[in-house]
């Protein structure tokens, strides 16, 4: 019934040479060696275009925006053609009932074969009325589509961990996708995730027919295995103790480490420093701004961005653990000093009491 990837590319006017180029890039993106390119060619000649359902819930569509900006044009181009994007609120041509029919048909005809990608968190408060599509709640839509999906991918911080709308007190009860569906979910966090990472993850599933190796938070290890800090080109400045003290000082101009400016690189797992953004142009730290840790769970509640330690809960915006700790330490010192003074004032009577008692006993 469906077309193979090679057939589809031929129809779109790609040459055999371009097809081979795509296969080689795809193999590299999936982490295979160049000798495996032949297998990929053979797979793409036989494999049907995998149907994709792309659902949007509580989100800003930034992940979609990122996705269409992948830096390898041939991969980006071909991938969008290779995938059979059967349903996507943002990119699909049909609307209304036609769109819903397309979704129903995919679930019915490609049972257990389609890939479900989710952008955005799902509200659970008040029976999920905070996000409705086609008269149904996001939660029921997600459960229905996820039930027969071959794989579920959570795009971005919202789908992976709840996102900004899950920030305390989380009024809509926004939840990560992985908490609401039964099958394993691959989390590709970030706000948004890096375009090339998204492409590579999809390519991996296409080429090998399975999700890449995941860590304990469901993230692909190859992209989220190392800290931004450990791959950062400013890291030597950190070890040398050379820090930017304010955004407009000499050290900032010299490109020292942004740790004291609140950079969250040391606690953030992502590939920003390796792949970079916008066709490998730059990434936040290279542009002189600290990492805000957007691919980490709960980054929205661990502010402010310009302190690398979060504010202490219940003590106002600007109080870090150290402000509170110093206050406690000073109060303790004051208490101890007061105690010492009282003890010294009473010294004579204490000595006398003790001696009197000794006298009595003897």
């Amino acid at each position, binding site marked *: 019934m469906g077309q193979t990837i090679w057939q589809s590319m031929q129809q779109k006017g790609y040459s055999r040479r371009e097809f081979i180029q795509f296969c080689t890039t795809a193999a590299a993106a999936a982490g295979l060696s160049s000798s495996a390119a032949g297998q990929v060619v053979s797979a793409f000649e036989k494999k049907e275009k995998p149907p994709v359902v792309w659902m949007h819930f509580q989100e800003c569509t930034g992940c979609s925006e990122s996705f269409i900006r992948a830096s390898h044009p041939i991969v980006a181009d071909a991938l969008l053609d290779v995938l059979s994007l059967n349903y996507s609120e943002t990119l699909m041509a049909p609307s209304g009932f036609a769109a819903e029919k397309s979704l129903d048909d995919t679930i019915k005809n490609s049972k257990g074969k389609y890939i479900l990608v989710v952008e955005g968190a799902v509200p659970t408060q008040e029976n999920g009325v905070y996000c409705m599509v086609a008269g149904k709640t996001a939660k029921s839509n997600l459960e229905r589509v996820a039930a027969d999906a071959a794989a579920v991918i959570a795009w971005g911080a919202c789908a992976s961990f709840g996102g900004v709308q899950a920030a305390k007190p989380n009024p809509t009860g926004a939840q990560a996708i992985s908490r609401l569906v039964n099958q394993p979910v691959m989390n590709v966090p970030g706000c948004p995730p890096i375009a090339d990472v998204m492409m590579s993850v999809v390519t991996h599933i296409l080429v090998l027919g399975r999700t890449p190796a995941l860590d*304990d*938070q469901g993230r692909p290890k190859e992209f989220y295995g190392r*800290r931004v800090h450990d791959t950062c080109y400013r890291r*030597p*400045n950190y*070890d*040398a*103790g*050379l*820090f930017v*003290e304010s955004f407009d000082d*000499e*050290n900032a101009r*010299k490109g*020292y480490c942004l*740790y*004291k400016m609140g950079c*969250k690189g*040391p*606690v*953030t797992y992502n590939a920003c420093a390796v792949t970079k953004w916008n066709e490998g142009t730059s990434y936040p730290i290279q542009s002189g701004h600290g990492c805000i*840790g957007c691919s*980490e*769970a*709960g*980054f929205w509640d*661990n502010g402010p961005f310009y302190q*690398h*330690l*979060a504010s*202490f809960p219940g003590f106002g915006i600007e109080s870090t*653990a*150290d402000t*509170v*700790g*110093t206050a*406690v*330490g000073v109060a*303790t*010192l004051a208490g*101890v000093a007061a*105690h*010492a003074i*009282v*003890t010294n004032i*009473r010294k004579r*009577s*204490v*000595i*006398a*009491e*003790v*001696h*009197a*008692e*000794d*006298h*009595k*006993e*003897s």
Partner: protein
Amino acid sequence: MSTHSTGVRDIFKANGSGPVEYRRVYVWEMPVRAYHWINAIALTLLCITGFLIGHPVKLGPAQEAYQQYWFGWVRVLHFAAAYVYVFNFAARLYWGFVGNKYAKWKNFFPMTRKQQREIVDVVKTDVLQVKMHGEISTGHNSLAAFIYFFTFLAFCFQTVTGFALYSSVSSSWLPQMFKWIVPLMGGEFAVRFWHHTFLWFFVTFVIVHIYLAFYHDYIEGRGTISSIVGGWKFDREERGR
């Protein structure tokens, strides 16, 4: 209140005429003393380097990165001290089962009525200052021991969160054992925050601990301070024994 009127001369008179006898008691065995001082040194290093890791100070004029490594050394020192501190603590836990009666684990849980009464007594001595020379145990007094129990919990917390943070830079089996803590606590932000916050528990503890050690040395008058160096304390001999 009659003692208020006791003059210095009376004190000397009273002192001179009362033959009170004290017995030497070997309280802190060598492993307990070694634990105390190794712990004190490691903890001090950990607090100082830990604070510096949170708040790196500006050292000298700006130079090129390859010329220095001071922040790297601060971190190395922190990690090395942490290992010393953890194994030292593990040794003390072991000694809690095989050591003498003053070192036994039972001291740290106020389960008996006697211990509970002593806690009230020590509060009267230390905080209210109304009972200045009550009967206080020769080893840890019950209140101090109970507070040490909480510091042990804090030790465990710092160990677990510290190794969880360290697991991202070390593939060694020990830190890797605690890797699961990170997602449990909601990411490294949170682990780091709480690990840093507990620094202040230790700062506060050290202030109070040192002060009270001196205070009890004075109030009990039987060598509290020197006991942690030599191990000996003094027990008042009961008459008729």
